[in-house]
């Protein structure tokens, strides 16, 4: 068990800045997700926590002890790598045993831990096989067993589920969360998959271009994004982000007029597809759009339409809803559910919906 503090952490590769001024507090026993597009610095950050990459500047503290210069195996961390990396030429049992090389526990204790981990992850039938003889899901379980036998203070997982098929990913997702809650070990999980992030994490840290955009519970991240990047990155179908002008109590973009208040000038209005209503093209204040496609998802359907400026706008509609491609319609956002962002992408919090 440990809490982790990252203080002004910075990592550069030559002239390329991978991580910039990262301050992050990870609570003891927490399941923290680091989410972001590829190249955002999340894996580099994880590698720095593990000790595989040295920090260019800044400090890493485990339980207030500075471990910035401590080699990986002395940090008492366990790591599961992308596509569940194992030593391919030695058996599953010996793969798990190598995790305990640097511990001073007795042979009996060693055996007990391995047996326990094997039982917990249901890998007993293939302890003597080579990793190459296992399926992707089995390898993932072995990699997890290899991590937990060390009884580490921190688990680090680098996109462990990304190479698996969808059904397996679904079941292993809940398995991992269940295991983490039973063991209560502080866990950092790196992913670019927003569904994994939303479903697994106690908190999500969203990163972009080496910087932390926002950290919060899945609910906070989804419902109250603090930047336009977070707003656009989470949610499927994604949030509609419309650039326009705010003046005189209205957000205006072409024919669209949304009664919201805030500081005047150029802003971006964000509204999720479930928070808009589809109406006639001639409805006052509606955004005039042309139907581009309708996607039927069973429980709901998504209307994708082009507005006058050519941006795609998405709206959630009832499952049986139909429209011809090319048909003219109007879209009216719910002012109470609209978010405003300034030109730098930061949220404008003083937004208030006005009675129209």
């Amino acid at each position, binding site marked *: 068990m440990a809490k982790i503090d990252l203080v002004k952490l910075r990592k550069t590769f030559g002239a390329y800045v991978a991580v910039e001024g990262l301050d992050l507090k990870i609570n003891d026993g927490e399941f923290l997700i680091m989410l972001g597009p590829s190249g955002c610095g999340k894996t580099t950050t994880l590698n720095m926590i*593990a*000790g*595989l990459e040295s920090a260019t500047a800044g400090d890493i503290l485990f339980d207030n002890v500075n471990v910035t210069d401590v*080699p*990986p*195996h*002395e940090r008492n*961390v*366990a*790591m599961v*790598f992308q596509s569940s*990396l*194992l*030593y*391919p*030429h*030695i058996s599953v049992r010996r793969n798990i045993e*190598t*995790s305990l*090389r*640097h511990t001073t526990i007795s042979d009996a204790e060693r055996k007990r831990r391995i047996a326990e981990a094997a039982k917990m992850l249901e890998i007993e039938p293939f302890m003597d096989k080579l*990793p*190459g003889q296992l399926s992707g899901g089995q390898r993932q379980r072995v990699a997890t067993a290899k991590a937990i036998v060390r009884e580490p203070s921190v688990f680090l997982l680098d996109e462990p589920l990304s190479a698996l098929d969808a059904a397996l990913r679904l079941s292993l997702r809940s398995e991992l969360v269940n295991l983490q809650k039973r063991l209560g070990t502080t866990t950092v999980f790196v992913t670019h998959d927003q569904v994994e992030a939303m479903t697994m994490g106690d908190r999500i840290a969203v990163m972009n271009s080496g910087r932390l955009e926002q950290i919060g519970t899945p609910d906070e991240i989804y419902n109250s994004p603090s930047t336009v990047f977070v707003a656009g990155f989470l949610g499927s179908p994604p949030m509609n982000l419309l650039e326009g002008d705010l003046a005189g109590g209205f957000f205006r973009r072409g024919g669209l007029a949304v009664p919201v208040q805030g500081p005047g000038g150029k802003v971006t209005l964000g509204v999720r597809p479930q928070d808009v209503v589809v109406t006639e093209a001639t409805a006052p204040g509606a955004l005039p759009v042309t139907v581009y496609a309708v996607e039927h998802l069973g429980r709901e359907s998504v209307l994708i339409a082009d507005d006058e400026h050519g941006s795609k706008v998405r709206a959630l509609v009832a499952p049986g809803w139909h429209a011809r491609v090319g048909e003219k319609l109007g879209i009216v956002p719910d002012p109470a559910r609209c978010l405003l962002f300034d030109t730098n992408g930061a949220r404008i919090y003083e937004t208030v919906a006005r009675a129209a």
Partner: protein
Amino acid sequence: MAKRSIFLYLAIAVAIVWSIFPIYWFCRMAFLTPNEIRLFPQPFVPHVFELGTLYNIFGYDYEYAAGFVSGASGQSNQIIRGVFNGLFMSGIVTVITLFIVVPLAYVFARMEFRHKEKLLFAVLLAVALPPVSTLIPFYSMYVQLGLNGTRFGLIVVTLTITVPFVAWMLIGYFRNLPPIERLARIDGYSRTSCLLTLILPLAKSGIAVAAVIAFLFSWNEYTYALVLVNGTSANTLPTAISGFLGQYPEPGNLAASVIVTIIPPALFAYFLQRHVTEMSLVDPVR
């Protein structure tokens, strides 16, 4: 599909004929008696299977069942020395090559350091250099150093061929191994123990094939051997065989010597075929 498989089998047939026919040709020649070899046209298949030429090249007279005797070849001293020198020097070259190349290839394939690209280019340039281009410089240097006609001298020259070539091959192989170094660092292996206890066992197929290639390069090496050691006590089998093409050609003995030459490669190919196919056909990962 049927059409494709016809062409596939045709291609396989051509490849087999291409590689088997020369072997058939000199095997036939080795078994023909001295009289038959002078006939025209020569028989397609020898009538008697007697190992006369093999006796002759190792310095023994042989009495054929038909009653006549073929005498020991005058080249036999060279052939016997060639076999021993060849095995000895190729063995040493293989061992030294591996000792140099395995760490070198590992470092180039798996680590980042300054000027890596330029250094790698230097290694690969040596592969592209034809042996003939360095032949004269080596010869004049060796004469001054007194190294011409010595086993040591030939071993050093052969290493200049095997090291870059095998390095070039192994760098690619090491690059394709899974990134287990990261895992090893979490498990507390040092760089050296990771290489010795994890990477080497994992890469044994590639290293075995590298050893074979180094051995065969050295065993077959002709250009340098011809100029530096031919006719001395350090001569190798390829140069000894070329002696049969001299003033009194002995085609039967030449063919028998060629059979001796292909025995080591044939044995290697047989015992290491599993490693060879594993290395070239499938990704070594997982």
